[in-house]
């Protein structure tokens, strides 16, 4: 749309620019500012969670206890690492950050449906992070793992306030996510530009819609579970206490009924990002658009009926296990649709290997590796042997830690010019990619071998037999850490001295609406609702 058209017709209350000073950020009702706040929070959280994981890797570099005398402290590290990365890095970056920035831009809306509610979603997230970090620091910390299984998490084994802080942290972060999900779904359902039907909206929007529904349906169940744990710990109920007629296994059901959709909450937004990046840099529309959209919806739906594959060792009868094996395997079908559609998008395309594209291809590779080990673990019989070993650690770090992180990095390099108006240094970006790709693979691939050899997770010490691959793994951690530092250097360097980015730095392949507004995107966009109805034939 032309600037003149945007300038002369302002009947609304949004004709002012950005408010000045700290109020702009603290009181913000602007989706771009709130998106930026989310991205900054995610970067702070990834540093905190990264330091935790680095300490874990240092301790595991060789057998015996090197640095950590207090074994509960190791448990606290593992727990805090998981919580911070899941709830305060991946989710805020992909959903809060990219979702806030690009849902309104891509659907032609001026902002989110509920800008004030958007703001409390962010600040509740900060409160959640504060409570979580407090939980690691008081009363010996919460050493329960991110799964918070009773009886370990009950008042007998964690009598201090640490687990209560963790519970309330998740309550608050959950409220933040539920409000965010309501906001996202309402925005997507109600505020699309005329002509942008569900079957014509960008795949990132589809991804965010599916993710928001998963959040909306899964998080309240976690809230219920956490409430029961809280009352078990403090008010004498016995939901998870066998002595009072309760059942600790029931916690696992509730937790994984939330927890399995949660892992899709972390990866489905990345699916959306990858579809855009692959299409842009192959200079082709996405292959099988509708299949891609409904594959995400199918993955989201099936995600709710497979939870007990996390619990194959609790003693289910064989019919129950057979069902959960089968249902889990079925997920491979829509996932395969996505993988092959990305490959088919690249096929015959004029591929440009810019940094976002390298990260997208890295994502596809990592996700396939993690997906294949996922199918391995889906077999109840095999899982009896692999349960709680480093094979599981390797599997889920491939899919939801490094694949999700590659989705974030792909999206970040793709949209950074739009968000800050400056181009990053392409050579540095590519070096950063290769360093990161090599680092994470050296870090996590050997953990498959440690796991197959039987090395248990969440234990700071191990026999000599596992020393070799653990040493290799730690080398990978150093390389990944260096790559992370290089990433932050690129961000700072781009912000300080990057070249000015054009509205669309990627050329003909980038067709979605966000590339039609200037870079950086102005404070208010789409003051005029774009018309996306198909143009009559010439």
């Amino acid at each position: 749309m032309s600037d003149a058209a945007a300038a002369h017709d302002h009947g609304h209350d949004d004709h002012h620019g950005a408010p000045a000073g700290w109020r702009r950020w603290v009181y913000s009702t602007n989706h771009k500012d709130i998106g930026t706040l989310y991205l900054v929070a995610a970067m702070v959280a990834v540093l905190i969670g990264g330091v935790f994981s680095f300490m874990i890797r240092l301790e595991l570099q060789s057998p015996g206890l090197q640095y950590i005398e207090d074994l509960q402290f190791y448990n606290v590290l593992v727990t805090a690492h998981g919580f911070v990365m899941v709830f305060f890095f991946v989710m805020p970056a992909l959903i809060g950050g990219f979702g806030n920035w690009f849902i309104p831009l891509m659907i032609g809306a001026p902002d989110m449906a509920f800008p004030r509610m958007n703001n409390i979603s962010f600040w509740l997230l900060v409160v959640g992070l504060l409570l979580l970090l407090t939980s690691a620091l008081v009363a010996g910390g919460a050493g329960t793992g991110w799964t918070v299984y009773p009886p370990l998490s009950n008042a007998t084994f964690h009598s201090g306030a640490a687990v209560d802080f963790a519970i309330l942290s998740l309550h608050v972060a959950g409220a933040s996510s539920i409000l965010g999900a309501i906001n996202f779904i309402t925005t997507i359902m109600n505020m699309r530009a005329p002509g942008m039907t569900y079957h014509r909206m960008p795949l990132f929007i589809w991804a965010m819609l599916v993710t928001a529904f998963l959040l909306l349906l899964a998080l309240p169940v976690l809230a219920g579970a956490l409430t029961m744990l809280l009352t078990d710990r403090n008010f004498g109920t016995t939901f998870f206490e066998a002595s009072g007629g309760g059942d600790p296994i029931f916690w696992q059901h509730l937790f994984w009924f939330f927890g399995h959709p949660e892992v899709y909450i972390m990866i489905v937004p990345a699916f959306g990002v990858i579809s855009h990046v692959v299409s842009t840099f192959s200079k082709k529309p996405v292959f099988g658009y509708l299949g891609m959209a409904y594959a995400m919806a199918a993955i989201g739906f099936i995600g709710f009926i497979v939870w007990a594959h996390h619990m194959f060792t609790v003693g289910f009868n064989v019919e129950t296990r057979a069902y959960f094996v089968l249902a889990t395997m079925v997920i491979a079908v829509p996932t395969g649709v996505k993988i092959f559609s990305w490959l088919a998008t690249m096929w015959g395309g004029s591929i440009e290997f810019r940094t976002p594209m390298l990260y997208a291809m890295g994502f596809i590779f990592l996700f396939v590796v993690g997906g294949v080990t996922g199918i391995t673990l889906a077999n109840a019989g095999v899982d009896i042997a692999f349960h709680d070993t480093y094979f599981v650690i390797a599997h889920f770090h491939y899919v939801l830690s490094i694949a999700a992180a590659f989705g974030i990095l792909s999206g970040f390099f793709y949209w950074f010019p739009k968000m800050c108006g400056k181009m990053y240094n392409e050579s540095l970006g590519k070096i950063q990619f290769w360093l990161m790709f090599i680092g994470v693979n050296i870090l996590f691939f050997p953990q498959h071998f440690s796991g197959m050899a039987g090395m248990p997770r969440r234990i700071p010490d191990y026999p000599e037999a596992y020393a070799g691959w653990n040493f290799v793994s730690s080398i990978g951690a150093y390389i990944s850490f260096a790559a992370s530092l290089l990433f932050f250097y690129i961000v700072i360097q781009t912000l300080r001295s990057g070249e000015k980015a054009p509205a669309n730095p990627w050329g003909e392949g980038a067709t979605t609406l966000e590339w039609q507004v200037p870079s950086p995107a102005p404070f208010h966009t789409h003051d005029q609702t774009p018309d996306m109805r198909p143009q009559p034939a010439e």
Partner: protein
Amino acid sequence: MASDATSKPHHWHVADPSPWPIVGSVSALVMAVGGIIYMHTGFIWGFLLGVVLVMYTMVVWFKDVILEAETPGLHTPPVQVGLRISFLLFIVSEVMFFFAFFWAFFHSSLPILNLVAGAWPPEGIEVLHTWDIPFLNTLILLSSGATLTIAHHALIENNRDRFLNYTLITVILGFIFLGFQIFEYSVAAFSLQDGIYPSTFFLATGFHGFHVLIGAVFLTVCYFRGRNGHFKPDHHVGFEAAAWYWHFVDVVWLFLFINVYWWGSSPLGHLQP
């Protein structure tokens, strides 16, 4: 693609910057930390301060929303559609919250779900009489759903007196329900610490009762808004949301009555392994 000729100024309501989100978040922090201090030391004032702060945030925030609703041109028909969608989604999330507590009930009472389950009701638990207060409360809550629907129709027909009277009757029925619920708790032969039956019973019915209170307060606000001339036959999203919420609470009660009070308090000998 976007074409200049046909693009129009948007009709959405983009709220002005507001201090309430951060005030509300800090209040939540005070409430959470205060709650933990209470649970570990018995010192309750920090928690109560948090509750007061959260309630203050709600009052000032919702006041802003109500003022916007009464300002012509802000809550346009498409914005009202968005408000309705969002409230339905909120109710969906509430349904999933109750889903967890119903799951707790069925996990404990159905041996097929739980390998260690004993008899249900567990031995030594003297259950409440289904057809006494629980059934009376069912009638009260169902009646309140009917009176609320009358109020809604009256509003649509622009009969303000009838709308106000029936809204008030609904609120009163809600509080009578709560009074009976509190009485029932006080005469129950079991307490919260008596094992899995009271755990599921008190948390499921307790959270329901809390939602009745929220719904009743919501309707009370609607009553006073109606007295101040708010709501039009074709523009009353606030009342509509309150009505939906009330019906949701009603349905949850029906599930509680049928499963927890009726089915769950009869001896289930035939289901034992």
